[in-house]
């Protein structure tokens, strides 16, 4: 069964550093998403991406966040200057055109120290 692949599975970074989280969505999917789950809390929507541009974003997705699909395969989330409160599990998801299901990756656990 097709999977959404996320790398790395765990990243530790120092406060103020830039991080890039990588995702390879399912190949025929056209909608891409990033969600965040702070430890023990609910899963929160960050951003959706379609047709090479952001289609929706939440209040969490401020100027320090950006997304990109640089090569038609990878879908990346960049955090420009990490803060302690950015520590969370970040999930990538994708969905096909007209599809009614989201496929989630296994997540990247980001720890900011």
């Amino acid at each position, binding site marked *: 069964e097709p999977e959404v692949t996320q790398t790395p599975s765990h990243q530790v970074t120092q406060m103020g550093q830039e991080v890039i989280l990588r995702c390879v969505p399912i190949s025929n999917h056209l909608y891409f*998403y990033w*969600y965040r789950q702070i430890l023990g809390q609910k*899963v929160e929507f960050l951003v959706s991406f*379609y047709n090479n541009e952001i289609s929706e974003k939440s209040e969490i997705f401020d100027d320090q966040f950006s997304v990109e699909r640089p090569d038609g395969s990878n879908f990346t989330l960049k955090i420009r200057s990490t803060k302690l409160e950015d520590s969370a599990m970040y999930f990538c*998801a994708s969905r096909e055109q007209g599809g*009614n299901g*989201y496929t*989630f*990756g*296994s997540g990247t656990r980001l720890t900011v120290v």
Partner: protein
Amino acid sequence: AQSVAQPEDQVNVAEGNPLTVKCTYSVSGNPYLFWYVQYPNRGLQFLLKYITGDNLVKGSYGFEAEFNKSQTSFHLKKPSALVSDSALYFCAVESRDAGNMLTFGGGTRLMVKP
């Protein structure tokens, strides 16, 4: 705006007994409803979804959920719980009228004891 409520932080049930994990939602437009399960240090695994049609939806691992429009609920059920069902369960809703994203409930931890 769309929202999901999971009123129980934790549900405890004995192995072999039926289980119910509750979910209510609020959306404008027709809801698409989902249940996901998360095992420790793992991602979100899809269990089942309601899009349209029969109100009783059957999913993975023997789980099912019933869509109740009048009560705006989508409770997750299983006739006979297994210890291996112990995990964190998330209900989620999407309304295409409100944008293409899932809104999750706060999660319910299911503990099945032998």
